């Protein structure tokens, strides 16, 4: 039973198609990544899934509820960490959590009981009474993460969670996300850092210009996919198939003869590789085996 399922999502702004036929299914407990450059349509896809904008085409189901029809009810079990921090500058750390918890119609006592463990989780226990302006960027991001957890969500959306943070802050966030995954929560995150996607995500989709180009499992090969359609995940990792490796092999080796599943060409004959050089995002990423598992 998917916590989030999208099919054929489309969205245009001013005649330009920003999301052009995105489909995926996310199982409970999974970490799913949307990887791509700025302007690829990742944030728009998130906003579509949350029901904050209406799609021009396609359908979405969030927590088994249709979106945008029942989006508001679906968001009861969802947490969101946006790209830009939108914490309340007039409130302290603690008050931010309290006020946000009230939006979920949680009993006051429940909210107050959840605040100390959340502050602990965010490493902000000592700063409960601090004003937001006195926090560093990393602290604000951790607070935003804690705030997204006030309703104990099953699914958490994170839009570029570590953009703009220094390496130490990034690692702290990654540790927290791994803890959340260990608790069985589902995470959907967008990022433009390959490293982040590979560290955290069981599956990821590379988006470019509104189109998902390839669906991958970062550390093992996935079953074969066509470049435009996506398969539902069973949530289990498949065993590596032949030719499934983490890094691109030098041209001329046998492994280099394995075709890229997006372009269906072997790298040294692929026009995209020759145009983009060895840095083509598709072929320098994890390799896809052509065989189904």
């Amino acid at each position, binding site marked *: 039973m998917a916590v989030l399922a999208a099919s054929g999502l489309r969205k245009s702004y001013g005649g330009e198609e920003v999301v052009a036929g995105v489909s995926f299914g996310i199982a409970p407990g999974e970490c799913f990544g949307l990887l791509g450059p700025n302007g690829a349509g990742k944030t728009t896809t998130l906003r579509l899934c949350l029901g904050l904008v209406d799609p021009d085409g396609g359908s979405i189901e969030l927590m088994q509820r249709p979106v945008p029809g029942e989006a*508001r009810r679906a968001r009861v079990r969802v947490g969101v960490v946006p790209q830009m921090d939108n914490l309340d500058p*007039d409130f302290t750390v603690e008050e931010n959590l309290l006020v*946000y918890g009230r939006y979920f119609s949680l009993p006051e006592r429940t909210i107050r009981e959840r605040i100390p463990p959340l502050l602990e989780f965010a490493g902000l226990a000592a700063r409960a009474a601090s004003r937001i302006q006195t926090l560093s960027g990393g602290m604000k991001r951790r607070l935003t993460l804690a705030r997204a957890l006030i309703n104990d969500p099953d699914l958490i959306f994170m839009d570029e969670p570590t953009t703009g943070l220094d390496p130490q802050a990034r690692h702290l966030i990654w540790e927290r996300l791994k803890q959340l995954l260990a608790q069985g929560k589902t995470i959907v995150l967008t990022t433009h850092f390959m490293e982040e996607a590979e560290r955290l995500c069981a599956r990821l989709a590379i988006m470019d210009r509104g189109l998902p180009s390839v669906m991958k499992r970062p550390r093992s090969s996935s079953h074969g996919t066509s470049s435009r359609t996506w398969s539902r995940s069973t949530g289990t990792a498949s065993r590596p198939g032949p030719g499934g490796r983490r890094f691109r092999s030098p041209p001329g080796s046998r492994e280099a003869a394995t075709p890229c599943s997006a372009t269906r060409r072997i790298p040294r004959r692929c026009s995209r590789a020759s145009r983009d050089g060895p840095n083509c995002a598709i072929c320098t990423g994890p390799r896809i085996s052509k065989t189904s598992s």
Partner: protein
Amino acid sequence: MRVFALPSMSLRFVPVWRRNLLVWRKLAVPSLLGNLADPLIYVLGLGYGLGSMLPQVGGVPYIAFLAAGMVCSSTMNSATFEAMYSAFSRMHVQRTWDAIMNAPLDLDDVVLAELVWAASKSVLSGAAILAVVWLLGLTHSLLSLWVLALVPLVGLAFGALALAVTAMARSYDFFMYYFTLVITPMSLLCGVFFPIDQLPATFQAIAAFLPLTHAVAIARPLLLGEIPGYAALHVLVLLAYAAAGFYAASVLFRRRLLK
């Protein structure tokens, strides 16, 4: 089309209203001073200053005449300011609305919360002026207590109109248009500072359609100890402006934020 649907109203707006209240409590003293000082200065300055030169206006000393107008005017200004500058800050600058809408709340809930909050703040304003009116002994009638019921209605009407303006604003500067072209003329045309029948006939006809006229038409008789004539009509006009403004604001905010 979702954009033109009637706004849904529910108690979900309450946590958002409480949030605004909590912010206000931190700044309560300067806020109250601000709400009170301006109209107070007008009442005392013009009331005693001009009033000492004028014969009775509308059958009463000018300061008593003016006070009724100032109750309405300060309520209008307070609701307008809150629904424009403060709401815009929350929506556009702080992105507070975005944060709220990631929770299980809709844009309709947020807009309703902003409207009710603007009206709530204006009640403080109007009530403060009313208290001064009582203290100065400018009214001797218990009917003046009804003004406390009028004030939230005035706040809703002007708050709603102001929210519609906020929905269209790209920056704070846009609000100057509304103040200069709508609020200030209304303050002068609607019987706040002098009786409407001093105006040329055309302007009197225009004034009849403006919401502030109807507010003053209820407030002044009440403060002077009389039951306002056509009270139901005046109340209906204010309600109509509140409803129309709220609907327009909802549609405009949807077009702006949900695309």
